[in-house]
């Protein structure tokens, strides 16, 4: 079906081709690179890129101590939003990063991120879906 075609296309998307294409290291905070359709996560002092097409959902929440949390869920095989796609067949035996959660002191930054990631993801998925539609 159409969904399958779209999923197949997005698994081939890559964020960067070489290390030098990554944005220069700035503050250790989550960043969105619109141009390369990537989110960069600060993990142990490094900015780790993920293509936005690997993201399934993003949520934020706040606790009673005014700490803000952002939770990023990634696509993994055999979940309702990513049915038995080409991905799981192609990557037999692979382990998936499923979810990351970060705490932040800056609630505005977190709500901005949630919006940016959601919008970017939607735009990329729509584009890929249309591309797949045209191809069939």
């Amino acid at each position: 079906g159409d969904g399958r075609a779209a999923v197949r296309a997005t698994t081939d998307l890559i964020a960067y081709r070489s290390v030098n294409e990554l944005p220069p290291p700035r503050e250790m905070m989550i960043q969105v690179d619109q141009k390369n359709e990537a989110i960069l996560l600060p993990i142990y002092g490094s900015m780790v890129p993920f293509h936005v097409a690997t993201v399934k959902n993003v949520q934020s929440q706040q606790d009673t101590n005014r700490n803000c949390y952002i939770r990023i869920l990634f696509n993994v095989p055999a979940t309702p939003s990513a049915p038995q796609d080409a991905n799981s067949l192609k990557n037999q035996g692979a382990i998936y990063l499923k979810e990351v959660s970060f705490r932040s002191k800056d609630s505005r930054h977190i709500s901005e991120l949630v919006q940016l990631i959601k919008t970017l993801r939607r735009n990329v998925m729509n584009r890929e879906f249309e591309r797949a539609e045209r191809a069939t």
Partner: protein
Amino acid sequence: MADGHLFNSISLGGRGGTNPGQLKVHSGGVVWKKQGGGKAVEVDKSDLLGLTWMKVPRSNQLGVRTKDGLYYKFTGFRDQDVASLTTFFQSNFGTTPEEKQLSVSGKNWGEVDLNGNTLTFLVGGKQGFEISLADVSQTQLQGKNDVMLEFHVDDTTGANEKDSLMEISFHIPNSNTQFVGDENCP
């Protein structure tokens, strides 16, 4: 400087982000001092287990693994530093650093490699990221296929990091044969 090399802007990476400092490599080992004092790291060459080089955005990263299971990552080396230090390590420590590559493709699937306290997520054989299991406060098996790692709340050293990693989870499909029957390890 007859004995060794001094580098003025080398940051030490870890759970709480990065700290700027100064690194000295001398014939007896490696010493890093945090800018403005405080934390210092000293590794004697007899304690060295291995060295690695990895190209990172705008810089190079030196990995220093010790026999005690500690692992330090220093960033801020220029390409020419890599060449001169590699020669220095070979002649003074009798070690050739191993070259690692960083994955930048942005994929979320790959392999998990466990080496001492370090968990490495590899994408296409290249390093996606590394975490230290020493910082993990709790692991949970969720369902049959997911492993969740929770990190210690770190309020002391994370001052230069705006967003701090709290939890990470991996999905291990049934088709994975690496960790069958080993539910305590992701």
